């Protein structure tokens, strides 16, 4: 008996908003407004997290790894640097290089930031915060997170700068090389769960794997298939362009890559998009390998945010600890190493699941 494709029993965030505010009485118009409010809340939650991560947490973490103190002058623990930096960056003059291709140059930051935001629509964040739960959830996330590559190439090409062009090309070469290991490894989870729907994947991980001294260990896919977990983390690091795979913006080689010519608010948007991508990668890892928002005592959304920040901490740890790979090494690791390992993992998972099923 094949599983039914539709299970419309999840109570999604827009519907909660609609019921809570009484907007559900107004038919489609009420639905639209409720969906917009819900999307606005989720979007701003992610924006707030990147706001904390970019100007403050990143500096503090790197400083801790290198025995420094970093920002500590403004506000408690230097937290008000977030406000100061936001004002400082937004009030900078926007210098546009003379040879820039205008529409593409202006659109690229919006594409980079917007595409990263889109992926969060299907992520179950716990405590009922999930905007949508389509059957194609996982495929949708992979699809929309790929749009950012277009934004990076637009930024790189339209800047009319050699560093930018190289950075944009490197970004795409890297994204396409690691996209396939990422998707194929994600697919080995789909074999276990038998669904692309995010809520089903999370539910499948709630079952106890084994009980140790009265404590039930959940069957998170990170525990069931640790090899896929490690592969996914590595491919994800490359996909979001963090160390050791940060060659698209390697400061010692090509200045800042595709964002060399961007200043003021455009720079903020590209930077924001990159951080949103790190968090989207973290959200994906949390959802398909770490049981989503599951966890004891604390409410779901707190666990979800803890898991996302754990992944963020990991990327910053790599940033301080691991040297950068070269472009030729990057291509070879991607196509000769990760791709082969990802397929080996996929086939082995299929065989093991086939034998136990």
């Amino acid at each position, binding site marked *: 008996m*094949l599983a039914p494709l539709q299970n419309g029993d999840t109570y999604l965030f827009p519907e909660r908003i609609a019921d809570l505010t009484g907007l559900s009485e107004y038919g489609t118009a009420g639905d639209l407004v409720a*969906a917009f409010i819900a999307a606005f809340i989720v979007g701003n939650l992610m924006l707030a997290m990147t706001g904390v991560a970019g100007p403050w947490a990143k500096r503090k973490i790197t400083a801790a790894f290198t025995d420094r103190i970093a920002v500590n002058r403004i506000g408690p623990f230097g937290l008000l640097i977030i406000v100061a930096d936001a004002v400082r960056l937004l009030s900078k003059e926007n210098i546009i290089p003379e040879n820039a291709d205008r529409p593409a140059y202006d659109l690229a930051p*919006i594409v980079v930031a917007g595409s990263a935001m889109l992926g969060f629509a299907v992520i179950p964040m716990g405590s009922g915060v999930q905007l949508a739960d389509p059957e194609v959830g996982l495929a949708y996330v992979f699809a929309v997170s790929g749009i950012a590559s277009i934004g990076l190439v637009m930024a790189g090409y339209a800047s009319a700068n050699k560093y930018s062009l190289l950075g944009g090309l490197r970004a795409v070469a890297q994204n396409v090389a690691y996209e396939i290991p990422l*998707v194929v490894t994600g697919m080995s989870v789909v074999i276990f769960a038998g669904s692309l729907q995010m809520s089903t994947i999370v539910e499948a991980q709630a079952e106890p794997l084994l009980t140790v001294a009265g404590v039930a260990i959940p069957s998170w896919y990170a525990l069931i298939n640790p090899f896929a977990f490690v592969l996914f983390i590595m491919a994800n690091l490359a996909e979001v362009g963090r160390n050791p795979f940060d060659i698209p913006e390697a400061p010692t080689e090509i200045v800042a890559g595709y964002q060399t010519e961007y200043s*003021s608010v455009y720079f903020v948007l590209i930077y924001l998009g990159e951080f949103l991508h790190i968090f989207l990668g973290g959200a994906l890892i949390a959802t398909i390998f770490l049981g989503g928002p599951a966890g004891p005592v604390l409410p779901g959304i707190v666990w979800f945010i803890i898991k996302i920040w754990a992944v963020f901490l990991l990327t910053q740890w790599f940033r301080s600890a691991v040297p950068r790979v070269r472009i030729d090494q990057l*291509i*070879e690791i991607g196509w000769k190493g990760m*791709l082969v390992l990802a397929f080996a993992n996929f086939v082995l998972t299929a065989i093991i699941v086939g034998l136990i099923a």
Partner: protein
Amino acid sequence: MNEWIAIGALALVGILIPLGMMSVSYLLRPSVPETSKRATYESGEVPTGGTRIRFNIQYYMVALLFVVFDIETVLLFPWAVVYRDALESGEVTLMQALGPMLLFVAILVVGLAWAWRNGAVQWAKSPRQVELEANRP
């Protein structure tokens, strides 16, 4: 409620937030037009030559390979979704469910091996690099 409404709403928010930030910045930022600072940045040197430089052919090779493998992953997704349910329903045997996928992946692995052997996934080196590496002690 159709859930794609919420996804569309998030897309709208994803465009409105950047636009909002742009308009705030537009109100805050100064404008001091001066031609020399708009020059293309080349580490402080006077820019030489055009930007549309000839770049490594490898980027194109990698992109071509990507198209092949990306289509393949798209074709594997439906298989991965139904695989476990099909086995548990008992309507197909293990070989019937697994065999076609193994064959499909095997064909692609042959393709990858061919590309590997022909150097498509090897970063192209300039003659000077090859010479340097050959003469390295």
